[in-house]
């Protein structure tokens, strides 16, 4: 019965969402307070019943109800319980329900945490979120119902979850990613609400910021988790493939970053209003586009869910209504008065403008490269795919320029930054950066590497200019740092995170060592300073798999650093093979061993790698997220509550 309850709950949620979409907005447009007051309760009801629906689906999985088609196709009685839960979002229908759930939860969050906002704004925001919710719940119910039954002859057991997905990464990556994707719907709703209400001012930007930053933090963590997961799960040590689905997550992140920065300008200076609104619409549009690309079969990717043209058409319609509708509202209601005169190009506004232009440009290149194969297909030109080199050719120079201006931009003043003053601040940082850039490759490898040198140059430059700014603001007294404000400190930490990731990416790409060789037990290989000894091979039994294992001893300078176990698993139900790489993680290097195929005479094809500084990539992402979190907690976003408390006292 759980599946039926789940479906009923979904229908009830749809009802709540429908009311949520209409009444409050109508109330806001006509000034009827009693209609606007529907917003919060409807949003909460919407979220509540979606939660119940989701719990019902989880229940079906955990109790092995294989009469539910979705459970039968994605689970198995032998599957460990934690994966039965995560299998809920392992394929299209369930992951869509998760999407929809998160949309509802974000709406509820807005309902609960917006006490200090004017009623009409809240009403509009919640209505718009309701509309998006209606669209997606309908999509789920009509084309992708996870609660459909396989009756009367239901399978006695399921076909199991794809072993690649039976992993901790799957438990956390999709939910985090979706929180980000869906979270940008709030910024989107705020933007549209502002357009519809005719109120686009600094106050609006201030309200919008914490929501936007929160979504951005989730997306950052989600993407980083995805990269980390691919690294250890796919068995060959790669961490980014410019796969269409990966690109689909990067685009909203890039534009979302631009949005965050644009909101800052709008809040502080009342500028870029039109741009900020457009960015908010674009960011969420790119989230929706990502959903479309993955679920419509338009692009082939190892990530994509099963392609179904009916679904593709539905999402396209959703995309059309949401994006087309919002862009039309934008065209009619966005402000046309521009205040371009109020700042000089050499100023904080100028740097932020450059920052946003670069981010948008990178996003555009990724967009172009991702969709180019589709254009070719539709125009009946020869089928092709766009490889990593295309993306890298642009990404590296553009992002390098970006990293280079981060520190400088942050230390510039609003409106006008005197050139001489700026140069005075930068001199020391520049010298430090150049020294570091030359020293690092030489010390690491004994020879020069210009790519790494460039990365170190801009990264150290970023950190040095950032530290210089902190120093200035503390007026030389480091004990003053905590009083600088969470928003500022958050920015500092996030920017340092960017530098850390940049270094990680450059170093892992150029200073890593890889060897794919044939090895028999007893043989060894040397990679740089590390000696890999293939000690023995054997067999192992898991809960739903059997595995060949290879035991390796790795030593450096004659001392054993670690004993590592690499596995080749065969999953019982589907018979699929999977590689479990052995990883010895370290701050400055990962040792990475994966088994290929078994060859004749007990030998194995083995891939050995020393991945230099790879953890820096995700560490940088963590720093960025921490910075973002800190910024959200800044007291200025809680001003009203404090004022209320003071008023009461």
């Amino acid at each position, binding site marked *: 019965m759980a599946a039926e309850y789940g479906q009923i709950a979904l229908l009830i949620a749809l009802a709540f969402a429908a009311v949520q979409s209409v009444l409050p907005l109508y109330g806001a447009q006509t000034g009827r307070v009693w209609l606007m007051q529907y917003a919060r309760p409807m949003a909460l009801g919407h979220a509540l019943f979606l939660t119940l629906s989701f719990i019902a689906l989880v229940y079906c999985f955990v109790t092995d109800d294989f009469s539910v088609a979705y459970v039968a196709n994605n689970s198995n009685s032998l599957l460990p319980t934690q994966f039965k839960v995560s299998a809920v979002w392992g394929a299209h229908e369930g992951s869509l329900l998760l999407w929809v759930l998160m949309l509802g939860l974000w709406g509820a969050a807005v309902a609960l945490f917006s006490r200090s906002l004017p009623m009409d704004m809240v009403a509009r925001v919640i209505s718009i979120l309701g509309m998006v919710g209606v669209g997606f719940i309908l999509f789920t119910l009509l084309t992708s119902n996870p609660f459909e039954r396989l009756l009367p002859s239901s399978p006695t057991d399921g076909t199991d979850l794809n072993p*690649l997905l039976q992993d901790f990464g799957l438990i956390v990556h999709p939910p985090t990613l979706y929180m980000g994707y869906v979270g940008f719907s709030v910024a989107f709703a705020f933007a549209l609400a502002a357009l519809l209400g005719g109120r686009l001012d600094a106050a609006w930007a201030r309200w919008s910021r914490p929501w936007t930053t929160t979504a951005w933090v989730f997306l950052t963590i989600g993407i980083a988790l995805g990269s980390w997961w691919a690294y250890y799960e796919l068995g060959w040590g790669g961490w980014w493939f410019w796969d269409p689905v990966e690109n689909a997550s990067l685009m909203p992140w890039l534009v979302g970053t631009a949005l965050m920065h644009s909101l800052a300008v709008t809040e502080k200076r009342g500028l870029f209003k039109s741009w900020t609104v457009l960015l908010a619409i674009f960011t969420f549009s790119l989230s929706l586009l990502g959903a479309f690309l993955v679920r419509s079969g338009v692009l082939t990717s190892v990530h994509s869910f099963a392609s179904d043209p009916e679904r593709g058409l539905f999402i396209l319609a959703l995309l059309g209504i949401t994006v087309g509708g919002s862009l039309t509202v934008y065209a009619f209601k966005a402000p046309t008065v521009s205040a371009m005169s109020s700042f000089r190009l050499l100023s904080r506004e100028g740097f932020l403008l450059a920052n946003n232009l670069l981010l948008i440009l990178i996003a555009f290149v990724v967009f172009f490269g991702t969709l180019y194969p589709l254009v070719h297909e539709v125009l009946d030109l020869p089928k092709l795919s766009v490889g990593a080199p295309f993306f890298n050719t642009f990404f590296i120079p553009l992002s390098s320029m970006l990293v280079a201006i981060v520190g400088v931009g942050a230390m510039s003043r609003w409106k006008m930054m005197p050139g001489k003053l700026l140069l005075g601040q930068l001199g020391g940082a520049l010298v430090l950066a150049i020294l570091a850039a030359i020293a690092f490759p030489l010390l690491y490898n004994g020879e020069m590497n210009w790519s790494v040198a460039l990365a170190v140059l801009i990264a150290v430059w970023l950190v040095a200019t950032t530290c210089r700014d902190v120093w200035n603001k503390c007026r030389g007294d480091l004990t003053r740092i905590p009083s600088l404000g969470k928003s500022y400190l958050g920015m500092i930490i996030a920017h340092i995170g960017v530098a850390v990731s940049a270094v990680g990416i450059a170093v892992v790409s150029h200073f890593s060592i890889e060897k794919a060789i044939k090895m028999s037990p007893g043989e060894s290989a040397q990679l740089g300073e590390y000696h890999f000894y293939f000690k023995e091979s054997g067999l192992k039994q898991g809960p739903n798999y059997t595995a060949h294992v290879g035991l390796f001893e790795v030593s450096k300078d004659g001392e054993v650093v670690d004993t590592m176990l690499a596995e080749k698993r065969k999953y019982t139900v589907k018979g*699929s093979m999977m590689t479990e790489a052995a990883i010895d993680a370290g701050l400055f290097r990962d040792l990475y061993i994966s088994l290929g195929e078994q060859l004749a005479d007990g030998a194995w094809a083995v891939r050995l790698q020393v991945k230099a500084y790879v953890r820096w990539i995700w560490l940088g992402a963590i720093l960025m997220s921490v910075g973002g979190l800190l910024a959200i907690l800044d007291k200025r976003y809680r001003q009203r509550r404090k004022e209320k408390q003071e008023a009461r006292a």
Partner: protein
Amino acid sequence: MHPQRKKRLQLILFMVIGLGGAVALMLFSLRQNIDLCVTPTQIANGEIAENQTIRAGGLVIAGSVKRADDGLQVSFGLTDGESEVIVEYEGILPDLFREGQGIVALGKVDSRRVLIASEVLAKHDENYMPPEVQHALEQAHKDGIENMQKAAE
């Protein structure tokens, strides 16, 4: 000219040049960095230029996988149901690589019409055939029938 207008003009000019330059660079880079999707038949017929990176989809011919005694060189046959092509690869093959299964090989064709693969990709699920392979198979079958009919006339 009014300074505000001048600055706006400068900015617009900058953006237009920047965007134009970017698009031009992109199209140029695209030409260098695209992987053309081809079928084994096209390779076997000599339709593929030698210096073009291509993606060929097909099925691994049963019994054709040969590994070198030393090292990780491997060669196997790839077919779309009509023609066969040899693929040579050095490295570790993906887990889902099996005879009779669909794979996509990325690489360049040499003078012997052998595909020297830099990457071999297998689909992520047994029951899923990459559209390239699917398309190649159906096209080959259709061409095969047409050729037979023509020959019969």
